[in-house]
């Protein structure tokens, strides 16, 4: 034991640190009047996670250092095993220490599923979500068109008479008579000698 001052405790493995920190906080708040101390004392984040993962074994750093499980193709080894250590799994682990050729296929699958939730194939399997997305988009588009039809029928006023086909033909003939865009545009394609369109 290297520290003998107040508040120093013998140091053990990692779980001791969180309990030690919790203990320090409890010691520090002991002298405060009880009405100032929250009923739930704040504990460091490691201990918070350790409470929530139950009996699961922490096996690595994982994604960001927190003992949580997530299936990701770019971080294939999460920080904790998926299943809690039940009795069957513990017996399987003993068998795992022996030759792996002696494991049956069911045991191998059970070992995999004990450590991991989804296989890569299951993670990357297509969800078929594109069908519902496409269906929703097309429904929205048809709804829009129906709304436009309703607007045209009930909301908009009738078009002016100058939009009728006879009036538009007369306007077009006026454009020809006025020699609109004679060099490269409209009437450059009109043959004025023979009064018809050029071929």
């Amino acid at each position: 034991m290297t520290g003998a001052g107040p508040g120093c405790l013998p140091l053990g493995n990692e779980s001791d640190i969180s309990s030690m920190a919790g203990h320090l906080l409890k010691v520090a708040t002991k002298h405060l009047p009880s009405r100032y101390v929250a009923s739930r004392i704040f504990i460091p984040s490691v201990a918070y996670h350790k409470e929530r993962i139950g009996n699961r074994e922490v096996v690595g750093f994982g994604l960001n250092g927190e003992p949580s499980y997530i299936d990701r193709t770019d971080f294939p080894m999460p920080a904790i095993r998926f299943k809690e250590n039940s009795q069957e799994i513990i017996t399987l682990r003993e068998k795992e220490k022996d030759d792996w050729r002696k494991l049956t296929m069911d045991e191998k699958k059970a070992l995999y599923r004990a450590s991991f939730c989804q296989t890569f194939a299951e993670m990357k399997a297509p969800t078929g979500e594109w069908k519902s997305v496409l269906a929703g988009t097309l429904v929205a588009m048809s709804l829009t068109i129906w709304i436009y039809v309703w607007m045209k029928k009930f909301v908009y006023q009738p078009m002016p008479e100058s939009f009728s086909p006879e009036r538009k033909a007369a306007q077009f003939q006026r454009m020809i008579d006025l020699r609109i865009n004679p060099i490269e545009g409209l009437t450059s394609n009109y043959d004025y000698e023979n009064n018809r369109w050029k071929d």
Partner: protein
Amino acid sequence: MFRIAIQRGFSCVKNIQSVIIPYYAKIQPAAVTSVRSMSKHSTETDEEFDARYEAYFNRTDIDGWDVRKAMNDLQGMDLVPEPKIMIAALRACRRVNDYALAVRFLEAVKDKCGTRMKEIYPFLLQEVRPTLDELGICTPEEMGYDKPELHLENVYDIH
């Protein structure tokens, strides 16, 4: 007496610091044999890289934690691990007595092949096959994990 008590207090604080801070990063892969340069560009050759990771996995005292760290790091790099790195990693899995980790590693390497899976993955399996047979590791295909087996409801679809 007062001085001794303070000194003991300080040594206690130092011990806490050394244990709280990098428990996770306790062992780094062996030093690179290239010249240290100021830029982030690594002057390490491919062979040096392969040798470094192979030596890392071949450590006899390796921990499950370190195996996973190295595998996650390899997954993040823009490369497919060489067969000799894979063999060393599978033997490391055997040393830490974790069968599921070996299968997961094979799946992960298969995923790294990307669009050229049909060319690269059979070659890798062929190179690694003696080790797989020796250690008794089934490939994901042999376990039936190349197709999805179980379905998991997407949490965003649960109403």
